[in-house]
């Protein structure tokens, strides 16, 4: 690992501006890290080395003239869910074989407009459905972290497992990711990286392959809280192409970092002390409370009584929306086509072969809950429960709470092929128990690395904020980061 690849985005930005380094050098350093590590980590499903070199060269020209955007020359990895023009875009599914969009997603277009360099496309759970990156058509991503003294392969979390692993193993400076039920925050927690899911409507969903449209949000995964603030500033925008994009100007998130948190009111929800939560996670939570208290924040106990219903409601809403969104994959307009005896047979064979097991499971669940006679009992009921979940949070904000502190995940990274997780799909779904409420209510949430388990694996804390108050999350997140320190895996790869 060269020194260049250890730089944060903030440091690299300064060094590029002062011409201490060039984007071409930086990009080469990351390309060689990818070359060395990808066979072991499997974070990238497509490396766009030529494109990266071209973009870096163009950035260097701009930088030499003291021009360029906020991310000029910064090499990034892009989750395979974002449409990138002429480049592999398959949501890591077999059904999108060979798909190369003729357009660019708004989020990635924003990054390139600000001067960022694309290193390639990152592995993920198929169509973002999963919490372990084991459902990808392109194989498992391996967590750069291992238990102390063990060679056992661990999952990086999911669905943005490639994004999180690539950042942790220094195979990019930062990565785009998406979060429908925890897909940014859970992998960030399991890899010792920072990840933020912004408020629903903050990042445009245009050109991002849809999973569950009322929950999907894009956000960054990075090494530090400041880097997340920098990346989110560029990713977020108001976009006429997405009607759910909200007309609020994107603030300078970085300005919030370092501001005193004195007097901020932090809610601690009793309902997040769930059965099966490890003692270590609970202890870490108490530590987090103490850190914020030491920094001058006021800690208050709050109640979010509908917390336990978020996950079951999610497993109606998300599959229902997915079954509708994924209806478009029929072997006609793009991707895989498996011939059949007639058109219906072609559809059925294409979808049977093109979708993996977890995706088929969710489509069937969604089709069932939306089928005639069940809509009211399932989808409508779940959407009503969602209103109650949101109301719980609204009451907390109305009582003067500025942000809420919770654990990010119930446990540290688990083994690839974990038997318990695979014998019962609901067990895997419980990985998202702390994160999914935030999607259901549309709120912003950040996961910040806060410590190591007794096995030496990273654990994260989550801060939940008011709608469009990402700045407060960065402000508080950096306090936790400063108190906890940063965590890096010991390189065993390449």
């Amino acid at each position, binding site marked *: 690992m060269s020194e260049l690849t250890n730089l944060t985005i903030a440091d690299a930005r300064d060094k590029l501006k002062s011409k201490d380094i060039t984007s071409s050098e930086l990009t080469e350093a990351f390309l060689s890290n990818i070359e060395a590590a990808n066979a072991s980590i499997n974070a990238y499903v497509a490396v766009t080395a030529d494109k990266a070199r071209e973009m870096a060269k163009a950035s260097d020209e701009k930088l030499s003239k003291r021009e360029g955007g906020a991310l000029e020359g910064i090499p990034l990895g892009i989750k395979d869910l974002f449409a990138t023009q002429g480049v592999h875009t398959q949501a890591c599914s077999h059904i999108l074989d*060979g798909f190369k*969009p*003729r*357009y660019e997603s708004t989020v990635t277009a924003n990054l390139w407009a600000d001067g960022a360099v694309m290193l390639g496309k990152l592995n993920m759970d198929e169509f973002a459905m999963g919490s372990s990156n084991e459902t990808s058509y392109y194989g498992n991503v391996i967590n750069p972290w291992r238990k102390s003294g063990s060679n056992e392969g661990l999952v990086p979390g999911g669905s943005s497992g490639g994004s999180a692993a690539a950042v942790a193993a220094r195979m990019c400076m930062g990565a785009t990711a998406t979060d429908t039920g925890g897909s940014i925050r859970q992998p960030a927690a399991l890899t010792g990286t920072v990840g933020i899911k912004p*408020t*629903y*409507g903050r990042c445009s969903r245009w050109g991002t392959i849809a999973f569950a449209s009322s929950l999907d949000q894009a956000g960054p995964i990075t090494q530090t809280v400041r880097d997340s603030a920098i990346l989110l500033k560029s990713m977020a925008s108001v976009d*006429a192409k997405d*009607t*759910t994009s*909200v*007309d609020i100007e994107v603030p300078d998130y970085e300005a919030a970092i370092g501001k005193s948190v004195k007097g901020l009111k932090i809610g601690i929800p009793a309902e997040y002390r769930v059965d099966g939560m490890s003692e270590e996670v609970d202890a870490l939570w108490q530590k987090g409370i103490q850190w914020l208290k030491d920094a001058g924040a006021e800690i208050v106990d709050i109640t979010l009584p*509908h917390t336990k*219903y978020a996950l*079951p*409601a999610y*497993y*109606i809403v998300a599959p229902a929306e997915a079954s509708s969104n994924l209806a478009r994959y*029929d*072997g*006609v*307009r*793009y*991707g*895989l*086509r498996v*011939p059949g005896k*007639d*058109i*219906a*047979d*072609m559809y*059925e*064979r294409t*979808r*049977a072969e093109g*979708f993996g097991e977890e995706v*088929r*499971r969710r*489509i*069937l*669940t969604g*089709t*069932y809950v939306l*089928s005639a006679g069940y809509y009211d*009992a*399932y989808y409508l*009921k*779940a*959407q*009503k*429960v969602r*209103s*109650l979940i*949101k109301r719980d949070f609204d009451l907390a904000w109305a009582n003067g709470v500025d942000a809420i502190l919770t654990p990010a995940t119930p446990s540290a990274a688990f083994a690839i092929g974990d038997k318990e997780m695979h014998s019962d*799909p*609901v067990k895997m779904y419980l990985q998202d128990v702390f994160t999914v409420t935030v999607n259901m*209510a*549309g709120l912003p949430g950040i996961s910040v690395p806060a410590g190591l388990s007794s096995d030496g694996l990273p654990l994260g804390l989550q801060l939940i904020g008011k*709608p469009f108050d990402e700045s407060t999350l960065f402000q508080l997140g950096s306090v936790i980061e400063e108190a906890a320190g940063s965590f890096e895996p010991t390189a065993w790869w390449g």
Partner: protein
Amino acid sequence: MSVDTATVKRVAGLARIKIDDAQAERMTGELNAILGFVEQLDEVDVSGVEPLTSVVEQTMKKRADGVTDGGKADDITANAPMSEDNFFMVPKVVE
């Protein structure tokens, strides 16, 4: 509520996903596990509660009624498994 294998096969038909008997059998168990899990929602009293339709209060955006995009037939058919003269090709659907 729980499902039987016949229901799973019917739902797979609706979803246009081919499944064999063994898969239908397995899916029945898995689907019932998920349906059992979501049954907890029966405990919640939702009388008088409006369903959440938007997480942020915003009136639906409108724009002027005008052509903003188009003329991209080549782009649209570029990724099709089979196309001819900017048409998507599918197996014969009418006799």
